[in-house]
């Protein structure tokens, strides 16, 4: 199925409690070489046909205005996956 993939991450300078909890757990289980974990979201938008350039532009708008909140998150990628 053709898709547009939107990836959203918490802002780099914000505390990411989920990532911190996972990092602590990894360190406890012997993976001390992992210095930090950050957890974001992958959102798939599905289409019947391969998305057009215009649909990709629309998806970028949706990603910026609805799928993420610029105060706390960054959209790191919006890409077509055929």
């Amino acid at each position, binding site marked *: 199925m053709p898709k547009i993939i939107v990836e959203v991450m918490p802002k780099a300078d914000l505390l990411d*409690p989920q990532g911190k*909890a996972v990092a602590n757990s990894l360190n406890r289980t012997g993976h001390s070489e992992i210095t930090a974990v950050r957890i974001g979201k992958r959102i798939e938008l599905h289409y019947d046909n391969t998305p057009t350039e215009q649909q990709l532009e629309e998806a970028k708008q949706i990603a910026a205005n*609805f799928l993420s*909140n610029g*105060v706390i998150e960054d959209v790191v990628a919006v890409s077509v996956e055929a």
Partner: protein
Amino acid sequence: MKIGVVTFPGTLDDRDAQRAVRLAGATPVPLWHADTNLHEVDAVVLPGGFSYGDYLRCGAIAAQAPVMQTIIEKANQGLPVLGICNGFQVLVESHLLPGGLIRNENQHFICRDQILEVENNTTAWTNQFKLGEHITIPLKNGEGGYIADAETLKRLEGENLITFRYVDVNPNGSMNNIAGLRNAKGNVVGLMPHPEHAVEAGFGPDMPEAMRSGVDGLKFFTSVIHSLVNA
């Protein structure tokens, strides 16, 4: 005097907010998330809960609901709107108030009777308080940490838009101890703690005088009635 109380799927405190409106002397009007018509209400309360299961981000889907499009338009024209807890999250996601709310610093859901300082008593929802007054109302949230960029924080402080600050403890890591905000006009106020749970003796927070006697929340609702009568 009619005050609308919005129910989104997943809202919890709509009945309590309606009851608070009634105890303050106004008539509560239930508003549904799919309404585009506000049924001629004089003010709106966005109550607490977990609208749309907190999916995507707290308040994000509610901010897109049909009823919110009308509320945003009317709020920008001066309609008094109070957002409580999830309602505050809806207000920031609707860009009626700046900044954002993130998971509590200690990652715990917090439920406690919270002391707040009233930092601004010129709004539609706080005019019955004294400036600097300490009030006690319940706080119950998992994502109540207020954040904003440095420029926004400076503007909030400079323009006196911070309406309530936490006293004694900062329960959720909010920047500058921010518990609640207003917009420039003062018709829109949002806060994390719950005034609607402190409106009737016997059912409110514990106070030094007596258990469960706290009614400090009632003044939010009498304030809006006062502002509408004198409008």
